[in-house]
């Protein structure tokens, strides 16, 4: 254990290295390692598809341990969507197999000239030919590998045709239905000609104090089993949120021009449960297996089976593209999974393309809102980069920059990454969360909309900024410890459990505040990766798109409400102040030094990022 395999695809060499104390103590694991390794090893100017870009596949101390939600793996890389720091995590079982195969992390670098897959079997890492897998869908490739290796317990990360064709928002699939969806790391693997990574291990995962771990785990499982929420999450998973979002004017509809979808009932959790659900799939160790297995039972998509849909998919490809039924959502979901496309960005890109077409800004788009067949064709064109799909494959920001004007106003993205499924014109804290998320507009760093709903939908009070900062640390901590946040978010499992579990597993006695300090360190370091790439970046990069400031919501209880620019400025000022950043969102030297990040200062200053002292 404590081993990292460095896989150089250019030289076709494998080097096994020990994890440094610095990584273990100061960065803990998961995306903490991703951020530090990318800072150290992927300098400014390296293009996302350059051989010099790297993909860090990292477990964390909690991956594979006895606790709810420990099936996570974090992937980090320079993102094709943003050109800066990107990460995404995936559930299932891959990280557990990787650890049992003897490795805590993989660093994938260089480029192969032929398609390959990386095989990690019980202490051995090898690079194998993948000519026979290239061109397959991501699930097809996974099944082919499992047959070839003759072991269903092998766990895979695979890319589909979209990753091979370097669609900027290509995803990575694992265990049939789990995805590292965001920031386009599937495209980075595609650029390196890595079709798959497969892990299979039988080693014990070392635990410092097994009895304590069992005690903490039993308490936590019991806590979850007693919770009403556990049953609801097993029944519908994240799909419960469709109707909730709709009732709260937060359901992205028709490229986020609306926030209430008239057909929400047709794509809701209830629709899923009554019409298509056939079972559940849990990530490793889960006390509340929320993954849904759905199968279309009738109509032209009959027989289509998918893990999901998840809320984000049903919203972004469903209401945001005005699909008409849960069956259509299942079809598009499976299509995206097989092609290896992030359903969030795909839904946003398709909806954006349709709105641009309707406004006469973009030619060559045949699809329309609600036109499922047209949308299927457009999604395929994106994955295979045919016709207008070739341009759309670069994401909304690049298309909008090319078209200019109105297209920029309605490209629903921040920093190049499409906004996920919470319409936030009447949710200033959520808007701030999207604005300041360190991979571009993603909800997982700070799901602050519940706070907006609790305290007031049009308030711009400083507590909202404070709440966003708090969430960005707590939620990042889960990606650093590398386990699922949902037991905490949805069942209110107390955070002290994680402090106790970390101690039992590692033998290191650290208080929650100390663990949260690591999350703050990582958040500042990822900001510095952005600054190194874009030294003149300022507060304007932390803004949601103009549409949210300029257009009032068209209907519902918040009709006419839009984001208030002055209010948002105040929130941003407060946010920077709380973080110890200057008014352009740059960490001060004092803040960096006090977080143990003094090592970034010289390089950032040399590149022209003006850092103030304090």
């Amino acid at each position, binding site marked *: 254990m404590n081993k990292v395999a460095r896989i150089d695809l250019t030289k076709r060499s494998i080097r096994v290295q020990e994890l440094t104390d610095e990584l273990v103590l100061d960065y803990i694991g998961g995306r903490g390692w991703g951020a530090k390794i990318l800072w150290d090893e992927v300098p400014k100017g390296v293009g996302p598809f350059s051989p010099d870009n790297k993909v860090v596949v990292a477990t964390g101390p909690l991956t594979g341990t006895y606790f709810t939600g420990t099936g996570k793996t974090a992937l980090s890389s320079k993102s094709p969507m943003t050109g800066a720091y990107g990460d995404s995590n995936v559930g299932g079982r891959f990280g557990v197999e990787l650890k049992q195969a003897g490795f805590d992390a993989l660093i994938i670098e260089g480029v192969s000239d032929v398609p390959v897959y990386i095989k990690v079997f019980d202490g051995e890492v090898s690079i194998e030919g993948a000519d026979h897998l290239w061109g397959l869908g991501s699930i097809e490739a996974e099944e082919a590998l499992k047959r070839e290796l003759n072991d269903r317990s092998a766990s895979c990360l695979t890319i589909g045709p979209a990753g091979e064709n370097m669609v900027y928002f290509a995803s990575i699939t694992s265990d049939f239905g789990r995805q590292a969806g965001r920031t386009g790391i599937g495209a980075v693997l595609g650029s390196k000609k890595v079709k798959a990574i497969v892990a299979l291990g039988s080693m014990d995962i070392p635990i410092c104090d097994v009895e304590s771990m069992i005690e903490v785990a039993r308490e936590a499982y019991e806590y979850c089993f007693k919770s009403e929420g556990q049953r609801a999450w097993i029944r519908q998973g994240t799909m419960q949120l469709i109707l909730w979002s709709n009732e709260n004017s937060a359901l992205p509809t028709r490229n986020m021009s609306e926030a209430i979808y008239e057909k929400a009932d047709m794509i809701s959790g209830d629709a899923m449960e009554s019409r298509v659900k056939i*079972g559940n799939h849990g990530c490793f160790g889960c006390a509340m297996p929320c993954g849904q*297995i759905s199968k279309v039972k009738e109509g032209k998509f009959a027989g289509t089976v998918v893990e999901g849909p998840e809320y984000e998919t049903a919203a972004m490809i469903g209401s945001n593209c005005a699909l008409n039924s849960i069956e259509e959502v299942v079809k598009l979901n499976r299509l995206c999974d097989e092609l290896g496309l992030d359903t969030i960005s795909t839904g946003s890109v398709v909806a954006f393309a349709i709105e641009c077409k309707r406004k006469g800004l973009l030619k060559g788009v045949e699809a329309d809102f609600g036109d499922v067949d047209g949308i299927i064709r457009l999604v395929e064109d994106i994955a295979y980069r045919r016709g207008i799909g070739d341009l759309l494959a670069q994401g909304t920001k690049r298309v909008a920059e090319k078209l200019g004007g109105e297209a920029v106003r309605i490209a629903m993205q921040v920093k190049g990454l499409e906004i996920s499924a919470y319409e936030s014109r009447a949710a200033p804290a959520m808007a701030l969360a999207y604005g300041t998320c360190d991979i571009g507009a993603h909800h997982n760093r700070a799901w602050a909309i519940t706070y907006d709903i609790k305290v007031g939908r049009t308030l711009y009070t400083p507590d909202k900024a404070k709440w966003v900062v708090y969430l960005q640390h707590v939620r990042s901590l889960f990606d650093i410890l590398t386990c699922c946040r949902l037991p905490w978010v949805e069942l209110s499992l107390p955070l002290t459990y994680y402090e106790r579990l970390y101690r039992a597993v590692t033998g290191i006695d650290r208080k929650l505040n100390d663990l949260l300090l690591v999350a703050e360190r990582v958040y500042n370091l990822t900001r510095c990766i952005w600054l190194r790439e874009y030294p003149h970046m300022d507060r304007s990069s932390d803004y949601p798109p103009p549409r949210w400031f300029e257009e009032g919501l068209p209907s519902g209880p918040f009709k006419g409400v839009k984001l208030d620019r002055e209010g948002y400025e105040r929130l941003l000022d407060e946010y920077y102040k709380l973080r110890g950043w200057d008014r352009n969102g740059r960490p001060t030297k004092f803040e960096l030094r006090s977080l143990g990040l003094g090592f970034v200062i010289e390089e950032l200053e040399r590149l022209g990022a003006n850092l103030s002292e304090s």
Partner: protein
Amino acid sequence: MRLEALDEKCAACGVCELTCALTRFKVNNPKKSAIRAEMLVSKDDVKMRVKACRLCEEKACVKACPSGALRFNGRHIEVDTSLCKLCKSCASACPFEGIFFHKDLEWPLVCNLCGGDPQCVKACPMGALMVVEA
């Protein structure tokens, strides 16, 4: 008593596997368990399957063992580790694919019902496992 599983309820989360390994060996290793939860994927279907000893009527593993290493002790299948030659005939014969091997162990892993109080049944979040009369 014996173990019964409702495959249609199983979510293949693996909680049973790790619970089993920790109960028997105090090791964090789901591969050292006498139960597995598996996801089977076909073109138009996904199914879960629990693999574990159900104490079948015929005790197929006992009959299949050429070394006499396995016997039914009235409660569960018992393995005489000194007699096992790792031929794996028992696993091939098991109608539930419920016998497992691990490279650290020189004998097969078969459910022993945790001495009458199966921990996996209590740990399953889906209620997919239960104890029934043998």
